Each structure stands twice: as C-alpha cells, then as structure tokens.
C-alpha cells in the first residue's frame, strides 16, 4: 500500500485478556518500529526490527509484551494479560533503510488506540 497500515484502529479489551495489534509497513521498507503513546504524551520507543530480526527490544515495558515480524514485512505486537496501564495508542513506523542511510525518515501509521477496562 501507499502508507503504513495498522489494524485495528480501536481495540477495547478487559483486563487480563490478550491482544494482538497488526502493522503492515510500506512495501520494501527494511526497518520497522513500534512506539507507545500514552494520553497527552509523546511516543516512546518499544522495539525495532531490521527485516525479520528484532535488533532492539529495550523499550518493551515487561515480558507481557512481545513483537514479531516473521517474514520481514507484517509485524504483530502482542500484549498478554493486559492491564489498565497498557491503555495507550500504539504507533508503528517503517523506514527504507538504516545505518549509513539512517537519515531516511520514519513513516508512521494511524496507530491503534487500545483501551483496557
């Protein structure tokens, strides 16, 4: 597609349920990022993939958060045993390359707004 696509746009879950958020990056983009944006705050980095390899997961807040990108394109962010503090907008971004071409901008999707009741 023309841009980064995220689904669902809204997700409501009860505390303790597992959720899965999907990101479809721009075709051909090597790098993929997940960010968490709490209400009224700036996005915070969660994890980064280069193709299918998860090179940085330092921002994942707990072991309940898990991300994968098995074929180097679509990525899924999974949150197990959700808690109220997981309520946030989850943004996905992709970029063409990294390293020597790291001035390539990150292109963001519209995000998934997750509400935990």
């Amino acid at each position, binding site marked *: 597609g023309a841009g980064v696509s995220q689904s669902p746009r809204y997700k409501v879950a009860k505390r303790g349920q597992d959720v899965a958020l999907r990101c479809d990056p721009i075709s051909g983009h090597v790098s993929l*990022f997940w960010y968490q944006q709490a209400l009224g705050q*700036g*996005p915070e980095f969660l994890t980064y993939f280069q193709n299918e390899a998860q090179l940085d997961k330092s921002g994942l807040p707990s072991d309940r958060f898990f991300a994968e990108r098995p074929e180097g394109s679509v990525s899924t962010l999974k949150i197990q045993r959700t808690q109220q503090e997981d309520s946030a907008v989850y943004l996905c971004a992709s970029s063409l390359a*990294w390293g020597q071409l*790291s*001035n390539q901008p990150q292109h*963001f999707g519209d995000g998934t707004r997750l509400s935990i009741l």
Partner: protein
Amino acid sequence: AQTVTQSQPEMSVQEAETVTLSCTYDTSESDYYLFWYKQPPSRQMILVIRQEAYKQQNATENRFSVNFQKAAKSFSLKISDSQLGDAAMYFCAYRRTTGNMLTFGGGTRLMVKP
C-alpha cells in the same frame, strides 16, 4: 540517555501570523538528527522538517523553518503565515546518527484562531 523537552504545552496563533515552538534536548553525541513531527487528531505522525546536526544552515520547508542552535542544544520551529490546517500536536524528536529509534518530546498543542 538523550532527552527532549518541549516547555510549551499549548500555543495559540492568529491565522496568517507567525508562531515559534520551542524544543531543547540533551545529548553527549556530536552528530545526530532532529525532527519536527505534526500529529493531527487522525493520530498519524507527519514529518514536517528535519535537520542534520553537522549542517550549520537552518532547514526550511515552505512556511516551516527551524532555528538550530547546536551549542545551546535548542531546536525551535517557526511557522509563518499560519493556516487553520496547521492546528495539531507538534512533537520534536531526536535520533543518533548511528541509531534508529526516535526520542520524542512531550509535545505542544498548537491552536490556530480564524
């Protein structure tokens, strides 16, 4: 660790006038990138302008320009001839040259009055 600070939670500007949004950052790196992103209610982060730290010349993109003061670690955004469509949250962001993740500030909500 790098930090980015936006000290203005909200700003207001009259349509057609000029407004400046402030951003300061802290880093021990000598080379890096700085960005301004716009986030309308649709939630999509849209890149407005970017600056490479090794370039002394301030970046400009049509009505948007920056005032990059490397020694002061300051990176402000000037919007000229403000339009109603400029109303949004604006985020300043930092990235190391050899890094990948963006570090964002807390954002400034810009309101444009007709």
